[in-house]
């Protein structure tokens, strides 16, 4: 609107419009309610101001009125709830085939790595019109990845992955904020999301010297750490076969069945005894403290690359609550 005095955030993602529509509805509803109540109060205050000889009329109440003005608001609230729930469901369900960016938040910066390989600090370059899924974790305290222009926000936790996704619809540069207080330079943990036309994005991708894709660096790390010793590609290994497991159910030795999502892979590397696959012994070494967050991201990306592109039920991998356990409190 006004250049230095904007009153509305820009809409730059596919979902932003839906959020704004609901918001405007709520603003209108609230304005209506306020006008209605304030007007009534004003009218009553004037009409029924204290005057000599005029007594107040003692009115007990009216059950009919009470029920009416309980049911109608409740009905409206349910509409708002459903509308918001649908939007939220959509926001928390990244579409299949989204390209992935791994994000590591730390005091007080954002480190991002595209699956194609390039790394960024405090900046995220994305092409217009592409679904982008962020797989995020923190190295220290809780942060939160917030892009107002996309209307997305997700807390970034130490010890597990959380995800968010968006599809940018407008080229431009947009604020990235940390929105969960994280210490001294919380307000400095900001950056920008740079949305480019696809051609420009390709140019940018191949611009810097590539170090290879994230999955490729994951593969070399996989070899370095000795993983193939037990995780062979045949059934002779002391560890489960890893190709094809990502996104699929896994049976554990205690009978539980969990989905092999990013958090499962991560936990299996850092704390292998938490979930033992049925038929295998708990002999995998603990890698907690031996691999950093970015290395973990690379390993996860590699193991994902061993599975064919997801074709199952839409959004299955992301519906699983992002947690190291199969259930969240």
């Amino acid at each position, binding site marked *: 609107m006004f250049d230095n005095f904007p009153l509305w955030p820009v809409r730059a993602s596919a979902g932003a419009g839906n959020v704004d529509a609901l918001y405007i509805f709520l603003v209108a509803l609230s304005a209506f309610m306020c006008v209605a109540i304030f007007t009534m109060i004003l009218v009553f205050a004037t009409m029924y101001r204290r005057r000599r000889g005029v007594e107040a009329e003692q009115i007990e109440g009216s059950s009919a009125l009470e029920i009416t003005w309980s049911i109608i608001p409740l009905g409206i609230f349910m509409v708002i709830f459903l509308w918001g729930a649908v939007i939220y469901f959509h926001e928390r369900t990244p579409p299949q085939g989204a390209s992935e960016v791994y994000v590591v938040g730390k005091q007080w910066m954002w480190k991002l790595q595209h699956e194609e390989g390039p790394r960024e600090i405090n900046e995220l370059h994305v092409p217009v019109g592409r679904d982008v899924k962020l797989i995020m974790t923190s190295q220290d305290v809780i942060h939160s990845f917030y892009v107002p222009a996309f209307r997305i926000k997700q807390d970034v936790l130490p010890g597990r992955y959380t995800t968010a996704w968006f599809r940018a619809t407008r080229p431009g540069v947009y604020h990235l904020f940390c929105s969960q207080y994280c210490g001294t330079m919380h307000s400095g943990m900001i950056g920008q999301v740079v949305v480019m036309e696809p051609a420009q994005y390709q140019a940018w991708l191949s611009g810097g010297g590539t170090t290879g894709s994230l999955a490729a660096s994951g593969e070399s790390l996989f070899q370095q750490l000795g993983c193939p010793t037990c995780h062979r590609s045949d059934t002779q290994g002391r560890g489960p076969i890893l190709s094809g497991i990502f996104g699929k159910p896994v049976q554990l030795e205690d009978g539980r069945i969990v989905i092999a999502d990013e958090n499962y892979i991560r936990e299996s590397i850092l*704390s*292998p*005894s*938490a979930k*033992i696959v049925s038929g295998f012994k*708990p002999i995998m070494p*603990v890698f907690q403290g031996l691999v950093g967050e970015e290395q973990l991201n690379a390993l996860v990306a590699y193991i994902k690359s061993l599975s064919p592109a997801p074709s199952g039920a839409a959004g299955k991998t992301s519906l699983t609550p992002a947690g190291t356990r199969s259930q969240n409190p």
Partner: protein
Amino acid sequence: MSDSPIAVEQHGPELLHHFVDAEQQRDAASLGMWLFLATEVMFFGGMFCAYLIYRYWYYNEFAAGSRSLDIYLGTINTAVLICSSLTVALGVRAAQMGKRKLLVVLLLLTIVFGFAFLAIKGVEWYDKYKEHHIPGNAFNVDDLVKDYPQIHIDPRHEQIYFSLYFAMTGLHALHMIIGVGIFMFLTYYAWKGRYTPKYYTPIEMGGLYWHFVDIVWIYLFPLLYLIDRKPLR
């Protein structure tokens, strides 16, 4: 009302001025103590909640930690507390019947049981200290890892079991200490003859508190000591 001779006669020194009569005072004390115990349930409840969640997640470590506790001492302590609740209940009855000496004896016994409990708990904690199972910088569960090779103990998760163990038993012990203190006061006043069949509310209320602390232990004992006492597969 205050002029009535009957009212003056019934107004003993223990009736506080703002109450209408002794019955109101007793009812108020009783409701107050039950409400206070409700707050205590919520207080311990937070920790029980944390315990339940972590036990579900880290069952193996919790089981191993549980087995490392001395079940004999734990059982003795449970018996001690149950006996102490008996002496408390008998004490209330003694007060109701006006048996001052018996009341004093029972209160003293309760205190003795209380101290016994705390002493045994102290021994248990000392054992944990020797075994390096107290969370913190000296924490070390290599012994447990060695003992249970088939279930692969993660020391970090084990640390959570012991943190909760000490927090829960510690808070319980603190409540026991407070209880013992209260009972010392009660014993003194009982010996002075303050409690009669017409007025023994403090004994009743103290008893309620003591029973509550006992019940907390009745929950703590199986949750902490009896997670998995079956022989390992």
